[in-house]
Every structure is written in structure tokens, then in C-alpha cells.
């Protein structure tokens, strides 16, 4: 995918947020940001589009609702009608709790599965390279270097001005 990256490391999230905003303002393309924990406001600073994951959640949830209602109706009213406390075989209210639980179950599992597939998180041999210390105490901003008018020195200078403690070039996408 990306042929090369310029990675700037920061001591804290404020430098990272500032660099992300300024890099975008300067027309640089941001590959990704790596942080030890979720940083509030980073999505906006990186200019990311809203996630499409909620649509998967909605779709899986609706599937769960319909499936649960259909199955309960089939088992208790169609395949083998059961008399429970003299209530009609198709007693909609009695199906609500199971339908609710199944909605939540499918929505949750579907969301996690979709996320794993989309970001390529799977068991594999040979871990992708991880930037040093970003799982510990460093915040990293990776800039794409493949632009026509990419000026490495200017980009590094921009990051240093924003508070980067170290800037280095990486050959391939981590």
C-alpha cells in the first residue's frame, strides 16, 4: 500500500493532536496515529470520516429481532402449539425478552466481527511491525511520504514545532 512513512513521536497527546491538525492544514496525508490509549478528539484532528460500523450494528440488531420473533412464533405457535397459562399460542409479549436479548447478542457479535474483519485483526504468523513504545508511553503520528510534492524536511520541522521528540522515516506501512 504505502511505500514510505514519516513517523513523529510525541511525549503526550497534546503534541500529537496539534501536529495532526497542522499536518492536515499543511496538506499532508496522515497514514495513521498510534496511541497507548484512546485520545479524545483525535478522530476530528485527523479529519477522519464518521465510522460506518453503526450501520453494521443496526443491520445485525434488526436481523436478531426478526429472527428471534420468527423462531419463537414457529416453535410455540406453528410447529407445536403450546398452551401456556391459557394464553393464545402466538403471544407476542412473551417473545419480547428473548427477542431483545437476541437483538443485543447479534448486534454486539456482528459489530465486533465486522471490526476485526475490516481492520484485519486475526491470528497470524509473523506479527506486523509495531512502532516502538506506542503501546507504552509514546504517541506517534505517521505521515504518508508518497505525495508528489512531499517535502520530508518541512514535514519533520512541522512535527518538531508541534512538540515531537523524535522523527524518523519508516520504509513500509507498519
Amino acid at each position: 500500500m504505502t511505500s514510505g512513512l514519516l513517523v513523529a513521536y510525541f511525549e503526550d497527546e497534546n503534541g500529537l493532536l496539534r501536529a495532526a491538525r497542522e499536518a492536515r492544514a499543511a496538506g499532508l496525508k496522515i497514514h495513521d496515529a498510534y496511541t497507548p490509549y484512546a485520545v479524545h478528539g483525535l478522530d476530528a484532528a485527523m479529519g477522519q470520516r464518521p465510522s460506518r460500523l453503526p450501520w453494521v450494528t443496526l443491520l445485525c440488531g434488526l436481523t436478531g429481532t426478526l429472527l428471534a420473533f420468527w423462531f419463537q412464533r414457529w416453535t410455540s405457535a406453528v410447529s407445536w402449539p403450546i398452551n401456556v397459562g391459557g394464553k393464545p399460542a402466538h403471544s407476542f409479549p412473551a417473545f419480547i425478552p428473548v427477542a431483545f436479548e437476541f437483538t443485543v447478542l447479534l448486534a454486539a457479535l456482528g459489530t465486533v466481527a465486522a471490526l476485526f474483519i475490516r481492520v484485519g485483526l486475526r491470528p497470524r504468523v509473523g506479527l506486523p511491525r509495531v512502532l516502538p513504545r506506542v503501546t507504552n508511553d509514546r504517541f506517534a503520528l505517521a505521515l504518508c511520504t508518497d505525495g508528489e510534492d512531499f517535502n520530508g524536511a518541512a514535514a519533520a520541522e512541522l512535527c518538531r514545532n508541534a512538540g515531537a521528540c523524535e522523527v524518523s522515516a519508516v520504509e513500509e506501512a507498519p
Partner: protein
Amino acid sequence: MSVVNVGHDAGHGHDGGHGHDAADLHAAPPPKASPVGLGAQPVLLVLTLLGLGGMGVSLLLWPQRAFSGLLAAAVTVLMVGLGGLVFALLMAVSNAGWATTLKRVPEALAAALPVGAIALLGVLPGAALLFGWVEHPHGRGAWLNLPFFAARMGGILLLWIGLAFILTRSSRAQDRDAALRHTRRTVALSALGLLLIGLSGSVAAFDWLMSLETHWYSTMYGLYSLSGVLVAGVSAITIGVVLLSRRGRLPGVGDNHIHDLGKLMFGFSTLWAYLWLSQWLLIWYANLPEETTYYLARTSGGWSFLFWLNLVLNWGLPFVLLMPRAAKRSPEHTLRVAILLLAARWLDVYLMVAPSGDAIHPGISLPELSALLAVGACFGLVVLRALGRAPLTPVHDPYLGESQHHPG
């Protein structure tokens, strides 16, 4: 208009002098109180008087409905006021910073609790018309007798008003002396206050609403009513915040605050629906005669339309309308949903109160609407007055900086 404010500046030192997008926040209003809603106040006063007139007429023509309407209006308004109080206490006890910049709104709602209290005490002279246990023997006399009932009512109202008073007094004192001890004391007050409100709120729901039907009971009833308190509180806060920030009176409020209020409305509305279903489903399932009377009265005759409409207005519509992220971030949209939820709140309370009498069909006309108008308009008037009594931005609250730099 250019008073430098220390508490604010200390809050965003981490920005390192950068952040032009936050520059307008520096123009926080000076720490002094100024009137709110001067144009609306006379209107509300006139509406209150009109409502009182309507109540007087209803009292002569339909005394039972006049008291029933007053009870519904009083409980609705108490839910709003108590909701404001609970919101403020929740923010304090959890050390939440995001809502600090708008905290005068819940405080003003809590400060208007006495309006609901007076309205509720006004129901006492007509208690015999509403509560069957006043005149008929029922075997629960040790708890349900008028003197003890009135004493409990007085005690519970005093407790809520007292908590609201201590909260607003300490919050306003911090405006003057900037002392941190007010924040610490409010945290302690909140922990105790929320516990007391949980218990007293349940007793209040059992007494004022559930005992309308002497022999019917539901252990969910207290929690169900308290979920209504949460909805009422957040909806009223949203209305206040959107209207104030539209006029530029809450400079610290941005889309992220509206988003949070929208999320809370969505969540509390769903909590209410969850408890509504829990109470209804168990009674439907067990089908015991002494339990089903409550729902039989509400799903027969002309009541069943309102019964199902209640579920749609309090949950179905808000759930759909608030689900998209963009909807929760739009001040205009959240304002509309908040107004819908407040109207639906009254309908829910009305359906807890009115079908308990012997009316076969719902009647929403002069007795109910005049009581709602009088109590509601008077409550709104007192809220506006309370908002004008303190600076709308609590400049010395240590969480103000965090609140104004709400990153979402």
C-alpha cells in the same frame, strides 16, 4: 465585558497557547448575575393567573377532576425539579466535568421545586376525592391514614427542597469566594442526597400515585417513577440549555454538550421503556386478578388509545428520532425531542393518576389543562428567576475548563 477569569485559564493550560478554535471561549461572561427571559416572565405570569382561574372554575364544576388534574400537574413538575436536582448531584458524585458550564440550568430547575411542592400540598384538601383509602376501611390503616400521609408528604418535599437549597447555596458561594471546599462538600452532599432521593422517591411514588388504587401494588412502581424523573430532568435541562445558548448566554456550550444531553435523553427514555415493559410483562404473564386491575382500567374503554400512545411518545418516537449521531448533535432537533418528552411525561403521569378514579373515558379538558398551565407556567417563571440570580457560567468551578474544552 472583559473580566479576566482565572479558573477558566487554568483549565486549558495543556493547550500550550495554541488552539484558535477555542479562542471564542475566552469571552466568558463576567461573574455577575443578569436577568433571564425578561420578555417571557410577564407572559408566564399571565398564563399562571389564567390557569388559576380555570382551576377555580373546575373546582366548582368538577371537583374530583380538578384535584386529579392538580395531582398530575404537581407530580410532573416535581419530576422536572427533582430531575434537575438528581442530574446536578449525579454530576457532582461522579466528578463529571463536562456539564459544569451548563450546571446553572439543573440548579435552577431544582430551585423551583417549591412550586411543585405547593401544588402537591394543594391536593391534600381533596384527598378524599382521589384516594379511596381515606374514607373506606382497607386494612392498611397503619400506613395509609391521612395525618401520616400528609406528614410523609411534607417530610419528603422538605428533604428535596432542603437538598436543592444546600446545593445552590454552595454553588453560588463559590462564585463569590472561589473556594474549592464547596466542590468537595457538594460531592459529599451528593452521595448522601442521591441515596435519600432513591428511598424517598420510591415512597413518594407509592404514596402519591400507587395508593390511588388502595389494593393494587407493584414493586417496580418506585423505580418506574424515578426513571420518569431522569427523563424529565434531562429533557428540561436540554430545553433550557438550547434556548439559553441560542441567545448566546451559555458561551461554553458546544455541539458535544448537546450530543451528551441527547445521549442521556435517549438512554433514560429507553430505561423508562425497559421498566414500563418489566412491570407490564410480569403482570400480563402471571395474570393474577389483584394485579391486572391496574392495566385492565387502562386498556379498556377510551383509555387504551392513550395507553399505547404513551409508549410511542415516551419511547418509540424519541428512540427513532435520537438514534442517528447527527440528530443528537443538532440543537434544534434535540430541542424538539425534549419538548416531546416533557409533554409525554405529563401524559404518563396523567395515565398513572386519572384512570384510578371511576372515569370510563379519558377527559383532557379544562380541569387537567388549567392545572397543568398554572403549575407549569409558575414553575417556568420561578426557573427563569432562579437563572437570573446567579451568573450563568460558574467561573470559579474547578471543572469549568474541562467542561468548556469538551472534546466529545
